[in-house]
């Protein structure tokens, strides 16, 4: 059966192998990759290790106890009722999704993520080993042959059935506070065979696979758990790579390897490689670094402001840097578009604002000198990111480079030879801890703008009452004049973000109505081909850059570290680490201190 899906898996695998990984992996890796590609052609043989790149020439290290710090779920286990990133991350160790995101071997010789941006967030098999596109609105997912629930009561290791998936879908719809808006295009989910589930859409929906792979949405819980709130409120039972052994709120969680997880590596080793993990709640970052240095943690994230100290203390640590999936933007008042209110109704003024911003300096400021990237409208940590100064953006890249002279010329051409007096609105009391670079960036922007003749007075707003208040909050279309500096929360698919930003939606901060963008969003929502979808997303970003409806700014690097006696896989997201990268984590137990 030659389906589009099978071609898709093959392409994911083929693309996932970077040149560097290929060279490192050598012949064994290449053979393994070829084997995977070959296997992917058969009906019953999805790739056993759905990760990018070869597993490496080395013999895997088996066993060992993985120790790390994890944000406490505070007694919440149900990722449908509490869809926060901490609960979702915790679920990823124990509960499966139909699909998951791809990850790649983390090369210890480089700090960069060893996965080309075009592969970020690619969906690969999780509980579903394959899928078939029957028509534009019908998908059939085939479950892993050997997928079983954890060997704990009340499921006791019984096989996962299509009926379980359907019931999990029904629970998702009933339990989600947002009533499952991200998957609203799914009309029905029904049993289609002994191992098959049919997904029927109400309309063609291109982002479906990415959404199903996203840890933000559908988790496959056993009906025994969803029918028993007491059970789902006190523990997690699933079919994922780990089995939750114990959980103490505010202290730690202990987990064992699921000996029956469906995945094996190309040598036939059952995954996960480690025997289990202990996840500690360590609220203090200094303490976490000390624990890592003392050899009590195998891996951790390091804030950029502490990375220098960390490196000095841990010269042997293997460090990876990534950009958070979080967009910093400037937006303008709705009246600029709806009522032609000057000065920001003129695209030249908006372009001047962008040209006045010194993004390199902002990166230095935000990262404490550790570097970062310029955002496009899709942020630098997001799927299908396009470098705003790269060749795909053509001459529009000029608007992302500081040019004060050109900014002044554009202002003069727009009728403001003496510049403009305006405001820059922001909220100082929301992100102090979670996004510590937000306030410093807001405070730095007016000085940059002033040099180009844009005299912006910084205006602070209370987050609760004035910023995110659904009735007239600045973030939800309530900006009356001036500009606003904001953070855009991440979503699973560009279609979500563009729909938020440009259609009839509270998160269309400026009430922008661009018919061309709306047409492209509609196409993007129906597009199932990754490359064509990416081209549509690129075009939307080009239109935005030309008009500077939203002015994307920058994101600093964040850092992850692991001990030198480990091998790991990495992905640009962390919410799904439990099934996407942790099962491939290896520990040289002869060098581990327990």
């Amino acid at each position: 059966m030659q389906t589009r899906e099978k071609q898709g898996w093959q392409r994911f695998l083929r693309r996932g192998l970077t040149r560097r990984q290929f060279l490192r992996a050598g012949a064994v890796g290449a053979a393994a990759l070829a084997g995977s590609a070959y296997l992917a052609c058969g009906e019953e043989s999805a790739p056993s290790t759905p990760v990018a790149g070869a597993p490496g020439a080395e013999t895997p290290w088996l066993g060992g106890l993985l120790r790390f710090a994890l944000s406490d779920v505070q007694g919440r286990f149900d990722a449908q009722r509490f869809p926060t990133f901490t609960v979702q991350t915790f679920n990823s160790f124990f509960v499966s999704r139909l699909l998951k995101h791809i990850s790649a071997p983390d090369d210890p010789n480089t700090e960069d993520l060893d996965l080309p941006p075009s592969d970020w967030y690619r969906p690969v098999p999780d509980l579903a080993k394959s899928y078939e596109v029957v028509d534009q609105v019908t998908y059939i997912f085939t479950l892993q042959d050997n997928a079983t629930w954890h060997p704990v009561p009340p499921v006791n290791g019984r096989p996962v059935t299509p009926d379980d998936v359907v019931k999990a879908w029904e629970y998702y719809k009933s339990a989600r506070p947002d009533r499952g808006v991200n998957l609203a295009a799914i009309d029905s989910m029904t049993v289609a065979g002994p191992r098959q589930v049919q997904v029927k859409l109400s309309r063609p929906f291109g982002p479906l696979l990415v959404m199903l792979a996203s840890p933000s949405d559908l988790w496959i819980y056993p009906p025994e758990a969803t029918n028993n709130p007491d059970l789902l409120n006190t523990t997690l039972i699933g079919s994922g790579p780990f089995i939750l052994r114990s959980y103490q709120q505010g202290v730690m969680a202990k987990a064992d390897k699921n000996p029956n997880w469906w995945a094996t590596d190309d040598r036939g080793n059952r995954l996960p490689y480690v025997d289990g993990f202990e996840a500690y709640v360590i609220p203090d970052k200094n303490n976490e670094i000390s624990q890592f240095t003392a050899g009590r943690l195998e891996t951790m994230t390091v804030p950029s402001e502490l990375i220098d100290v960390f490196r000095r203390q841990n010269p042997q640590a293997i460090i990876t840097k990534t950009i958070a999936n979080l967009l910093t933007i400037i937006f303008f008042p709705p009246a600029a578009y709806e009522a032609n209110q000057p000065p920001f109704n003129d695209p030249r003024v908006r372009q001047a604002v962008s040209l006045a911003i010194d993004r390199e300096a902002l990166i230095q400021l935000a990262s404490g000198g550790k570097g970062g990237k310029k955002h496009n409208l899709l942020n630098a940590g997001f799927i299908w990111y396009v470098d705003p100064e790269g060749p795909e953006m053509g001459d529009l890249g000029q608007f992302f480079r500081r040019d004060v002279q050109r900014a002044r010329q554009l202002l003069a051409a727009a009728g403001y030879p003496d510049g403009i007096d305006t405001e820059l609105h922001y909220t100082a009391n929301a992100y102090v801890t979670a996004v510590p670079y937000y306030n410093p960036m807001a405070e730095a922007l007016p000085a940059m703008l002033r040099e180009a003749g844009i005299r912006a007075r910084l205006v602070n707003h209370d987050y609760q009452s004035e910023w995110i208040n659904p009735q007239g909050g600045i973030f939800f279309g309530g900006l009356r004049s001036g500009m606003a500096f904001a953070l855009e929360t991440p979503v699973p698919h560009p279609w979500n973000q563009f729909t938020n930003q440009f259609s009839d939606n509270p998160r269309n901060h400026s009430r922008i109505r661009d018919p061309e963008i709306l047409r492209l969003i509609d196409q993007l929502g129906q597009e199932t081909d990754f490359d064509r979808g990416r081209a549509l997303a690129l075009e939307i970003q080009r239109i935005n850059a030309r008009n500077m409806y939203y002015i994307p700014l920058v994101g600093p690097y964040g850092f992850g570290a692991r001990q030198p006696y480990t091998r790991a896989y990495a992905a640009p997201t962390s919410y799904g680490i439990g099934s996407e990268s942790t099962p491939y984590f290896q520990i040289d137990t002869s060098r581990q201190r327990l």
Partner: protein
Amino acid sequence: MWSYIVRRVGLLVPTLALVTVLVALLVRLLPGDAVEIIIGQYTPLTHGDREAVRRQLGLDKPWYEQYGEFVAGVFTGDWGTSLQSQQPIGRELARRLPVTFELGLLALLISIVVAVPVGVIAAIRQDRWLDYLMRGTAIVFIAVPAFWLGTLVVVLPNVWWGWAPPIHYESFFDDPLSNLYFMIIPAAILGLGLSGSVMRLTRTQMLEVLRQDYIRTAWAKGLRERVVILRHALRNALIPVTTLIGLQVPLLVGGTVVLETIFSVPGIGSYLVTAVNSRDYPVVQAVNLVVALAVVLSNLLVDVLYAYLDPRIRYA
């Protein structure tokens, strides 16, 4: 004496009521939407969805109604349900209170064991180098904040020797040695912080007592120094010191909040910090009520003790 105690207990009720009302009000003034934090900022909730969640959590009611329900619940032994975990708060308090109590008790013991002997030695070696050293040390203990000392203890031994404080809490009843190894460092930091003022007061009181006629008489009788100091002087000097130790309970509670966070101690301090960060109003109210209760009861105990020791107070 009994009428004094009744009067003091009578004052306890409005104090607690005022504290709980203030906490209930202030925690709701904190910026940040409890629903957004609890449900997840990244979930695209519409206004209607948000209101539905608010109703479900009981947050749509006026604050005084929520407060009234909380107070009524406390009187019936129901401390409410955490907005975050949907779990009974009483159960979590029961699990965490002994941890904080142990930390506080250890800290108090350490502060007494350090402060009283040092205060006595400083007094009997008045204006000598040992006295200066001990007084200087006491000032350092008072001046250095626990969070800073805690951070130093976490960082410096790690930099110098690659050592880090233990990471994993074990109950005293499961593994006493591991428990003490885990608790001793935060308790020592907290205890040393408290010991500064106790040390200084002990010294001052000892100096005052040592100048009394009955001490001179004891010396004149030819009693040994140990007997004069410990039996005659220290006993009398310790009366105000005892009350000071009791009055330090609020400081102790404040210290545990910080140190429990730094050293990952699963007590009510870290529970409170997490609850404040996540705008878990019922938990914040419950923990503050417990803390307020502990503080007013300890103050009451001190007052009663003082009245017992000094009849001038109870007949005033």
